[in-house]
């Protein structure tokens, strides 16, 4: 089970916009464990949108997987709800579970043999995003999301895991059972393809 602090520490964001007062989370958890159907409905209502957003941004454009994974998060949460002690918020706790599920997905996909083509060795540094240029934040985010969405899955997941989730390459290697060198190679190709696609996005 993931520790909620981990999610908070890595800037996972907020799941719910309807956070209750302190003690509200433990009351809700206790009511669900007591078989209260209304509490279960409230649990789903309160947290699904935020968890969906969290998973969606990490798995897009594989939206077919997003729904299954969000459901898995809820089922895992329900199974371990008795261990929720209220030391952190329920949303942080749920994010911790979601984070583990997403990382499992990254790990499974990057562990499989990669069938990614060699990138041409062109000097394409000039195609890179120019972050010093005054770019509207909203447009920068949209363009980045578009480029990430257009990458082969292994490239997209590797970049998301390394830079957006801030997982060191060494840890990625350890968790996928690959060598650090092969992860570095994959990242280099992924960055190169990202830069090439940046101009067309």
């Amino acid at each position: 089970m993931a520790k909620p602090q981990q999610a908070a520490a890595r800037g996972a964001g907020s799941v719910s916009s309807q956070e209750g007062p302190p003690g509200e989370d433990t009351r809700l958890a206790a009511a669900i464990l007591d078989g209260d159907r209304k509490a279960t409905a409230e649990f789903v209502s309160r947290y699904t949108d935020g968890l969906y957003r969290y998973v969606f941004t990490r798995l897009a454009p594989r939206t077919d997987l997003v729904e299954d994974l969000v459901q898995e998060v809820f089922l895992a949460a329900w199974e371990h709800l008795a261990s929720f002690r209220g030391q952190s918020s329920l949303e942080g706790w749920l994010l911790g579970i979601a984070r583990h599920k997403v990382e499992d997905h990254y790990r499974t996909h990057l562990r499989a043999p990669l069938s990614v083509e060699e990138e041409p060795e062109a000097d394409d540094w000039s195609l890179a995003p120019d972050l010093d240029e005054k770019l509207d934040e909203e447009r920068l985010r949209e363009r980045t999301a578009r480029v990430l969405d257009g990458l082969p899955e292994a490239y997209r997941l590797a970049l998301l895991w390394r830079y957006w989730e801030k997982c060191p390459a060494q840890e990625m290697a350890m968790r996928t059972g690959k060598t650090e060198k092969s992860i570095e190679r994959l990242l280099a190709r992924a960055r190169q393809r990202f830069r090439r696609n940046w101009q067309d996005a």
Partner: protein
Amino acid sequence: MPDREQDEKLFIRLADRTGLGSMPARPAPSRLKARIYSALMLRESASKELRSIPETKAQGGKLCVFEELVRIAPVSAKTKSLNICRLCHARVLGEALEKPPIYWANCPYVEFKRS
């Protein structure tokens, strides 16, 4: 080829400026909420008896029209603890359609559609 260190820095900066929390995303479909609720209720009811409908009402829970009928019906206490949503057409419609034609108050599937 760009210098690897320079390349790393660029992507670190890009990720910092476009944190995933602020990336464009849509709200969850209501049928997903319906499916999650049904799955949780199925597991809860299989693992233990649910809080009975009269008790739910006594503790401040708002009942839908069908739950209210079960509450006043002359049936056993065990029946009043059943997961009656399992038999309800609102569940079927809520799980299958994004805008299910269900409208009555205090039904979780109707609430998911609104949220």
